[in-house]
């Protein structure tokens, strides 16, 4: 029993650290990436060794100096704010996002001795519903965080944010139904395993091949859920200063920022799990590679597991980078355009996708 508890604790820690570290790395990717996109030199104010190194250590600034600065700043609570909710707002924003990772499998099974460890924190048979439930709860951080500060800008941001998140959650959930129908299960680990098969023995049977439209809907709705450009109306710098977290400073503001970045990682992790083969490496089975054409390469189990975890992280990073590319390429939507996209474009498309998928599945038997 204690061994089980220990394994569960280690798995939770691994997943939590993975999420938090990816979040922090993303902060740097965002700064450097935006600099690359805008053709300027970015994040370069850390010339520590006086120009001896051929590259500069801007990454140090972002990864160490910035967080320390953020978390040691003065915490200002505005007059008339609701102190309790002002304190809990950032927690409510970041907790559901991090809790989502519990259902995401980061590898197949690891066999140590006679013990088989499922590389997933919580093996839920309703994994997808759990994810949707957590993303539903993440609205509270925005709503209460904005309301608690007793500021008009924050309240406007909070109301915009909650309307946006509820609207796109519906499209997101319906977009996922296609994938659920295809794989016939709500269990994320089972979905991950199903994607290890191949079509005609050559093409990896990843979700995106069956559900291209579902992926598109999920990605757009997911980006909208992260509340970043082009869907950043709840924060809208030029009109609401910072929207729902205008009146937060120091570590609380950092926590809100972190929850935004963690949401990018969540969306990428879910898109990876459902549409890009989760931790699968093409042609890699538990005992090694089985290439089409009968060529096989046996590998020790630890190497296989390591490759799976690395492939999972790499896929997440690629999708994160894509989202940052989107964020720095597109202008902000107008509010009516945002609502039109959610309700009049994504929702009918998602319904059509569900219908189409269901008909094909019934016809194909």
């Amino acid at each position: 029993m204690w061994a089980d508890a220990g394994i569960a604790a280690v798995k939770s820690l691994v997943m939590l650290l993975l999420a938090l570290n990816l979040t922090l790395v993303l902060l740097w990717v965002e700064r450097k990436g935006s600099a690359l996109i805008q053709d300027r030199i970015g994040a370069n104010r850390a010339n520590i060794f006086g120009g001896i190194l051929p590259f500069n250590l801007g990454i140090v600034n972002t990864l160490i100096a910035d967080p320390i600065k953020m978390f040691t700043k003065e915490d200002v609570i505005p007059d008339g704010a609701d102190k309790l909710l002002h304190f809990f707002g950032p927690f409510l924003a970041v907790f559901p996002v991090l809790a989502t990772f519990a259902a995401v499998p980061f590898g197949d099974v690891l066999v140590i001795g006679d013990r088989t460890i499922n590389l997933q924190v919580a093996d839920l048979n309703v994994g997808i519903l759990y994810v949707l439930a957590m993303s539903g709860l993440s609205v509270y951080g925005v709503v209460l965080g904005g309301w608690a500060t007793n500021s008009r800008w924050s309240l406007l941001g909070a109301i915009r944010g909650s309307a946006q998140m509820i609207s796109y959650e519906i499209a997101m959930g319906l977009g996922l139904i296609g994938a659920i129908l295809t794989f016939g299960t709500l269990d994320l680990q089972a979905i991950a395993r199903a994607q290890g098969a191949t079509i005609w023995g050559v093409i990896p049977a990843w979700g995106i091949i069956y559900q291209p439209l579902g992926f598109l809907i999920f990605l757009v709705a997911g980006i909208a859920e992260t509340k970043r450009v082009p869907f950043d109306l709840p924060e809208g710098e030029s009109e609401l200063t910072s929207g729902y977290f205008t009146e937060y400073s120091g570590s609380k503001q950092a926590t809100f920022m972190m929850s935004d970045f963690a949401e990018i990682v969540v969306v990428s992790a879910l898109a990876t799990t459902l549409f890009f083969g989760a931790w699968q490496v093409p042609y890699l089975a538990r005992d090694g590679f089985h290439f089409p054409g009968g060529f096989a390469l046996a590998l020790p189990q630890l190497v296989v597991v390591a490759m799976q975890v690395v492939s999972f992280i790499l896929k997440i990073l690629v999708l994160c980078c894509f989202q940052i590319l989107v964020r720095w390429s597109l202008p902000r939507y107008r509010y009516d355009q945002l609502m039109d996209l959610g309700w009049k474009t994504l929702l009918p498309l998602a319904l059509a996708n569900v219908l189409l998928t269901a008909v094909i599945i019934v016809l194909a038997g």
Partner: protein
Amino acid sequence: MGPVTFAVLATALVVSALTVVVHPSPVKSAMALVVTLFLLAVVFVFLGAHMIAALQVIVYAGAIMVLFLFVIMLLNLSDDGAEARHQGGALFRLGAWIGGGVLAVELAALFLRVPFPAPATPPAGYGGAEAVATALFVDYLLPFELTSILLLVAIVGAVVLAQRRAA
């Protein structure tokens, strides 16, 4: 679910449910209701009904309560209304005490007289997605479809009413 888990969960549930009723601030009342619904979902998880737990959080905590909060915030209800709530007449108070007393006596009698059955072991897959889906879409398909028509009528009615006021 062991007795300790149940005691902890039940205490938290009762405290948060009482907070919903007692707390003077509408927003915090609503938040306490969210906590109550969430804890109820946790109870469902411990009972093995994962599907129901997920639906509980998605529908109640994630959707309906957000609308509640929305309304409370937009109407900007302040704590001032709290005193008015407590200013019932003497007759009103007497009625509340009598009603509450009767309910308490009834509950106590129920607990004392009815023996608690031994916990039954649920069948395999109980409360999972398959079991719930079979109940909804096979056993009770007609009531389910009738309910959805009822909801559709309600939605159309709400839209018509809202538009008439706007025009």
